[in-house]
């Protein structure tokens, strides 16, 4: 596949984009990274993802694939021999897809409300957020990764959110480790993996982004 042309339309701070970066790194795929300004979307983005106009979009030999977990599965299926991310057993695969879907549906919104709201609304968001993390912590159990002994699909789906924890904690004035120590331990374990460490955003830069966004949105 030496002739493959891979372009990733992404945003440094996007947890969804980070998933794709990790998957590409796991497979050792070289690609051209293009940072999008979501306040001024490129023609290429609008053309490649006209339905949602969102990042990430992977463009493989001119053909676009959108939606982060769909992209991750696509990459995993094409480069199935190297560091497989999905389990091979159908029941385990169903569990992996279920939890990927759960992460997609549940985390983003309360997380966002932690930094965009104050007072009672923020307290409610924090509570919801921790409840969801506790469910995820329960699913992890005593396994080193969601994939079991090996880093896998669900780990890829979840670990990018860890880069936003610092920003959530500062904005919400709480420490996630207090309620979810096992989850934090899992995240740190994932961070020891080079592909993860180099793919996910720096928490301080993400916090700076949040501060900027709060100013723009007029939130104290």
């Amino acid at each position: 596949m030496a002739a493959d042309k891979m372009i990733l339309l992404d945003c440094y701070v996007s947890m969804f984009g980070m998933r794709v970066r990790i998957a590409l790194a796991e497979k050792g795929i070289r690609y051209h990274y293009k940072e999008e300004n979501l306040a001024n979307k490129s023609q290429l983005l609008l053309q490649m993802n006209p339905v949602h106009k969102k990042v990430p979009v992977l463009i493989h030999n001119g053909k676009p694939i959108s939606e982060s977990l769909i992209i991750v599965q696509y990459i995993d299926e094409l480069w199935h021999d190297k560091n497989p991310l999905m389990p091979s057993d159908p029941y385990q695969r169903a569990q992996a897809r279920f939890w990927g879907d759960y992460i997609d549906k549940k985390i983003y919104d309360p997380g966002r409300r932690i930094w965009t709201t104050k007072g009672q609304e923020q307290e409610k968001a924090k509570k919801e957020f921790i409840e969801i993390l506790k469910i995820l912590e329960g699913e992890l159990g005593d396994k080193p990764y969601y994939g079991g002994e090996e880093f896998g699909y669900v780990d890829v789906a979840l670990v990018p959110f860890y880069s936003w924890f610092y920003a959530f904690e500062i904005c919400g004035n709480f420490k996630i480790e207090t309620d979810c120590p096992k989850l934090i331990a899992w995240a740190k374990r994932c961070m020891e993996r080079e592909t993860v460490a180099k793919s996910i955003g720096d928490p301080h830069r993400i916090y700076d982004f949040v501060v900027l966004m709060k100013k723009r949105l007029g939130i104290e």
Partner: protein
Amino acid sequence: MANNDVKLIGAWTSPYVMRAQIALNLKSIKYEFLAEKTGSKSELLLKSNPVHKKIPVLIHDDKPICESLVIVQYIDEVWSSGPSILPSDPYDRAIARFWAAYLDDKWFPAIKGIGMAKEEEARKAAIEQVRQGLAYLEEEFVKSSSKGKDFFGGDKIGYLDIAFGCFLGWLRVTEKMNNMKFLDEIKTPNLFKWAEKFCADDSVKDVMPDTDKLLEFAKILIAKIRAPQN
């Protein structure tokens, strides 16, 4: 592979449940249908899907699988000797998954939005979203099922056919309740034909609800939702 013990917890009104039934039918798998009563959740459901507490739940050899599209993919992978449901090409698979996700995240909520909208503006926006979605899928049908094939999946029903076709009952109910046509021979000629073929397929015809029965159910449901809370 022997059919072993296959159960499906569901309800005749749920398009998501229908997805699982169509997939099981395509693979000729015999299963026990455990019907949930409207307005209450069985012990088995709560035990099998503690996270979402929703139907459908497939129980295969006592192991639960939840989320309709996860179930369809599971059925395809376990009973691999039957006709394939997912496309074989990875890019085609990604596209089929993309549209299935679009239908779940944007399109069907808009269908529900038409019925639930409290203001005219919201209702109009929902209607527009539904029309836009059908325009996208009309275009996708032409692109993907080239050479005059019957279904998104080609000669036979595939993943996107199942993901989309399951909503036809509720789409027709919405058309009747709002006195409008969404699927029509002029604006969406390919989808119009596709819908007829889909509903006539052996794997679908016994599980697609009768539109009038579904309409009656919808009226009762809406009345309950709109009723003042005690």
